[in-house]
């Protein structure tokens, strides 16, 4: 028994050097050569960091395209979904209120045109994307507030749509931050 205890402790220490020091440091070194140099890819505007490419942020201003509802208010110091069950009455009321808000800002929409991702909270609370449909229905509003041509915005959404992997696997999506950044550039 005593033999096993000593062997266990020694093996644990040896493996710690390998698994907790050498292994992550190797990856940290390799990560230096990745896009964000291992610290996350940043998005800049006029030289200032305005966000992380992968982390969604809150957009409430009608001059911008909006992202999805978030259970943590896009506070990226944490993360979280709503964890509301599908039959929870409070939750369904909340969704219904979100639909009403959307209709208020987009009076031209029929309810059946609203894609569910715009009125449901994401899993992480930091979802950077919305569906292509979700971006398209906002075009008219953004165009009105920014006094831009709708055609121009349609093109912008098209340009900022991420296609399925290799054109084969997974859904298409629109990165809201990148789209809005492109929108700001357009104004100049």
């Amino acid at each position, binding site marked *: 028994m005593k033999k096993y205890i000593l062997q266990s402790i020694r093996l644990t220490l040896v493996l710690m050097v390998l698994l907790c020091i050498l292994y992550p440091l190797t*990856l940290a070194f390799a990560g230096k050569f*990745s896009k964000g140099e291992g610290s996350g890819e940043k998005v800049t505007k006029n030289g200032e960091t305005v966000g992380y490419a992968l982390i969604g942020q809150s957009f409430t201003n009608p001059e911008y395209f909006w992202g999805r509802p978030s259970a943590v208010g896009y506070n990226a110091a944490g993360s979280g979904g709503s964890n509301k069950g599908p039959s929870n009455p409070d939750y369904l009321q909340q969704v219904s209120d979100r639909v009403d808000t959307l209709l208020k800002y987009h009076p031209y929409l029929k309810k059946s045109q609203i894609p569910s991702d715009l009125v449901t909270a994401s*899993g992480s609370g930091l979802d950077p994307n919305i569906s292509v449909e979700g971006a398209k229905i906002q075009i008219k509003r953004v165009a009105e507030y920014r006094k831009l041509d709708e055609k121009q915005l349609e093109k912008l959404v098209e340009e900022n749509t991420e296609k399925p992997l290799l054109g084969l696997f997974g859904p298409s999506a629109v990165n809201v931050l990148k789209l809005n950044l492109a929108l700001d550039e357009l104004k100049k």
Partner: protein
Amino acid sequence: MNTELLGIIASFAITLVIAVPLGKYLAKVFAGEKTWTDFLKPFESIIYKLSGINPKEQMTWKQHLKAMLTINSVWLVYGFFVLMYQDKLPLNPDGNAGMSPDLSFNTIISFVVNCNLQHYSGESGLTYFTQQFVIMFLHFTSAATGIAAAVVFFKAFRDKTTTTLGNFWEFFVKSITRLLLPLSLIVGLILAFNGTPTSYEGKDQFISLQGDTVNVSRGPAAGMIAVKHLGTNGGGWFGVNSAHPLENPSYLTNMVEVISQMIIPIAMVLAFGYFIRKRKFAWTIFGVMTIGMFMLLIPTIMSELGGNPAIEKLGISQSTGAMEGKEVRFGPAASAYWSTVTTIISTGSVNSMHDSGMPLSGLYQLLGMMINSFYGGCGVGILNYFIYLIIAVFISGLMVGRTPEFLGHKVEAREIKIAAIITLLSPLLILAGTAIATFVFGAYGDADWAVKPANWLNNPSFHGFSEMLYEMTSSNANNGSGFEGLGDNNIFWNISTGIVLFLGRFLPIIGPIAIAGLLGAKKYIPESAGTLKTDTKTFALMTFAVILVLNALSYFPALALGPLAEYFTMIGLRE
């Protein structure tokens, strides 16, 4: 065919393409035959030498269990104190606090037993030091423990009659050097070059496009996320696990992560066949497991793609499916696939919030964890399945009126007793645990704990019950996923699930190893016309029936009160 379904099919196909040769390779590695990774031998010798281990020393099944339990105890004691005092240790750039004793108790057990139930959020609950020196360390070692235990079981059936079953330390070290570490490096690099951070920098702050001040948690996560999947651990760096955009940045990484959590469990099943030189037997086991998986997977995908009937009633479009708790870059189909994979094997990482899934998805997730051997966790999946096999052999034996045999060894009262105890253990822990929780929720709603029992549940009614059932099931299955609406960081859940985790891990390892050890030592009986063949379709069907009947009898009442009741209240909405 739409791109979302195509993505799932591709994921499963790639899994098989990797897992089949990997199984063959593993059998060779553990049998000590020549493989192309033998260049690592000198490096392993250094590890043995530094640890004072002689890898040639043969162990009996009892010595194997002693070695396994000793090293696991060392980790339990070490981790418990390090987690409590992590605020006094280096690598804590965000200034996070130490854990309370009950949370530390729960967390360390959870990671030692390969469950990775998390009652904290990684961003605020751990430091970079504990993330790596406790959590990620145990990701490797708990998976290697499971694999080594499975190899002991393989050993018992390789030779006709044997009591010497190899060396535990050798199996354990090789699981890391020949399997987990090299694969983790590959997966870690893929993640690092697709957006997951690797540097040790702390939180960052910036002003968003709209003018809000935002903080972003980061940290060297890529390496941990790689091994959390390969080792079927599941405990993630960030609170929301692989739904977090830094933990799982794109559809590509999602495929990589879902493939990597499945390859070792499948490879272990096939390795069993190569190892004991009965390949057909392993393929029949694989067949039963795969059919089982599809029986849970297909209805889950259908229920998620069908969307939430209550939301449909609001009149909006759910063209892609149910989106609450899901990420747009994965979509409901890939989320459904992941939720099945992560519950049938014991990973428990999530890329969507299971609490917000459809009632039937919850039902199948629960069933996946209750059965816990449709592939199952790293190494332990095949051990769980072995118990079902013994029961099936026993019942078939009774039906045809012969002494049951398994791979040339008589199965007698002692082995059956062990198998029966292990079979009864899961329903006991899950159902008694849930019953006690429900009682405390009802009778002591005002108890002065970190979260009052009356405030435990994030959802009312049947779904609330499901949250408690899920927590206990996940603990017993050493899965680690959760209906995360449950307010679980308080003394009741920390202690109760801690105990369930512990028993749900070690007894189902000890039981099968004991049976295998006992059987292996018995006289070998050559196959004759009267032998019950275990590699036939008939026997496969028999095993499947045993799995179905045992689990249905154990869990149907509890499932009826939770997800089934919720489902039936919701289908009315479609009319």
